[in-house]
């Protein structure tokens, strides 16, 4: 069985919001809605640090961390259990998805989701440019929508848009049921936690805190499972630029 999940290395995240923009673009998300949000941990506003500067009695605990937050793809998903018409459902591969043709727009799932991952089309969807963006059909007014792990891309063997867009390789996508996959290895090897774990929603999104991981393990847009060779450390990978000519890729790890 496949059980898709994501590891997000908060030590690698630089708070650039590239994943959020890529998500919005790829999934044709209406202005005023967002499936993927990059929260600044602890600060009063976005990009303001938590803690105090060591001055005027401050204790010098200043720190800035980012928490990318989208649908956590819970395996005990409250949103799935509350949907009266089976519009929200869990796929066999672990992805929580919405059938937009069934959704009656009751928004019970939005109350059920502890992560506020779901958004509703209060209005006719509005995009710039007006014809829409990306590769997903626009949802109509009156239905709920959220992150799908870019299931339309997975069908093509491609990683989710946010994963590709991350310039610091902080997002790793793969099969949690495959013990050899990078996501499984990282979950085993590093300190990971899941958001609001005490609520027992059993999310498939894991956050790395503490020691930094080597990040996403391969280049290119394809999913790890599409690679012919087993994934290797990034240092060993050479990258052929599309324009021809070889470019040696720098080490992904900062250490």
């Amino acid at each position, binding site marked *: 069985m496949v059980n898709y999940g994501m590891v997000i290395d908060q030590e690698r995240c630089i708070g650039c919001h590239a994943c959020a923009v890529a998500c919005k673009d790829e999934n044709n998300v209406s*202005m*005023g809605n967002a499936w993927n949000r990059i929260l600044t941990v602890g600060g009063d506003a976005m990009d*303001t640090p938590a803690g105090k500067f060591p001055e005027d009695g401050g204790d010098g605990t200043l720190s800035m961390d980012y928490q990318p937050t989208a649908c956590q793809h819970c395996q005990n998903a409250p949103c799935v259990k509350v949907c009266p018409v089976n519009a929200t459902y869990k796929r066999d591969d672990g992805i929580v998805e919405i059938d937009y043709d069934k959704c009656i727009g009751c928004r019970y799932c*939005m109350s059920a989701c502890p992560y*506020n991952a779901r958004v509703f089309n209060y209005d006719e969807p509005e995009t710039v440019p007006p014809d829409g963006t990306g590769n997903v059909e626009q949802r109509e*007014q009156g239905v709920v929508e959220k992150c799908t792990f870019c299931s339309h891309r997975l069908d093509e063997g491609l990683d989710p848009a946010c994963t590709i867009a991350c310039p610091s390789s902080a997002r790793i996508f793969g099969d949690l049921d495959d013990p050899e996959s990078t996501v499984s290895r990282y979950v085993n090897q590093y300190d990971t936690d899941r958001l609001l774990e005490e609520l027992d929603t059993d999310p498939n999104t894991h956050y790395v805190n503490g020691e930094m991981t080597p990040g996403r393990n391969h280049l290119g847009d394809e999913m790890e499972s599409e690679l012919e060779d087993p994934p290797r450390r990034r240092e060993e990978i050479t990258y052929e630029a599309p324009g021809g000519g070889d470019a040696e890729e720098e080490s992904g790890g900062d250490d």
Partner: protein
Amino acid sequence: MSTREEKAEAGVVVPEFGTRGKAWIGVLVLAIVVGLGAWAYQLSQGLAVTGMDNVFSWGLYIMLFVLFIGLSAGGLIISSAPKFFHSDRYATLAPLGVLLSLACIAVAGLLLLPDLGRPSRITGFLTSPDFRSPLVWDFGIVVLYGLFSAGYLWLLTRRDLAKLGSRLAFGTEDTEDGREKDRKLAFWAAAIAIPLAIALHSVTGWIFATQIGRGDWFNPLVAPMFIMKALVSGLALLLVTAILIDRFTQYRLPKELVPELGKVLGVFVAVHVVYLVAAERLPHAWAAEFEFWAITSAFLVGDTFHFWLWTVVGGAIPIVLLAVPSLRQKLWAVFTASVLAIVGILFEGVYLIFTGYQDLNIADAPGVASGTDYAGIGSDVWVTAGNYTPTLIELLVTIGIVAIGALIVTLGLRFLPLQPGGGEPVSVGSTERATANPDATTATDGGHDVPDEKTPHK
């Protein structure tokens, strides 16, 4: 067609609409038309014209849905519970109570429609239901309760309808045997109604109480609270309505029932606002605070305006009005207490929704995209806390739906014989006195001193 006198004789309390009645109907129809217009506008513009957003995703419609589910309990308390114990002490109020239940459950059910983003797909409840969803169970039970109330109302009035020659009797005949048979049927109907009503209020409570993600919603006391607030608001609405139609129609409310039911209402309010609220808040306050007085004040002092409206306006004041014996005898006091109790229950619903939405579990900046605030490049679409004010559109739609309920009640008064015994002098518990132990009824002097006047309190 039967004459005005025949109708009054059979128990129709509004034999025909006068100028005032017609004006009232006109107002209701106007409110319904305006409400429909507002809903059409909302359908064309989307729920963007409401005050809801991605954080505060349920608003006035659901707050009032909860209220009207509670209000629909009145008929049951007054008709089923006594019937179940073979008492007809409150028989004068039974058909009216069931009519109110029917109207309120209709309003509650209709209030769900404008809350839906795609109401045309509501058939999904039947074609692909997920039986894990409390909403599926609630939907089913609201429909069932509505149908049951309609059937029960017909059962209670069909012999009088037959007497009246009304087509609504659907072939029922007015015979003494038939009436006896109906009394037996009414007992069994009461036996069904009680578990059905308990299920209705509990399942509605569990819509909220099952949700781990919304603060205080996840609380095992929510379902018992819903039962209790149904008893409070249902009885209060019945008292308010009975007093009003006693005043404005030929309906006669036995005078001594008012303080008596007022006393029952007082007990309900006390159990709800004093006991259950304490049971809910004390453990939290005790665990969170250390000093005795800190625990006491954390437990007694509420944090929001809605909380005070609920516990003081809807709790403390009605309890005083209903607990003081000399006040309880006064019609105005019972009436005021009932109105305030309903206001209190309304704000309990508002309070419940607010406790779920005002704080986010993950409230780091920038927060959640509101979904409603985009007005061009550079708009701030982010929110980190729930905020809600209903819009005019929501108010108009809601008033329209409530007017449908009022219209159901009004038409019921006009076409259904709601006064058992019809034109006969009204009395309390007549058969009860005839059959039961006399000692059991003398305490309240039930019905002995009711003079043959139409509106005893005027």
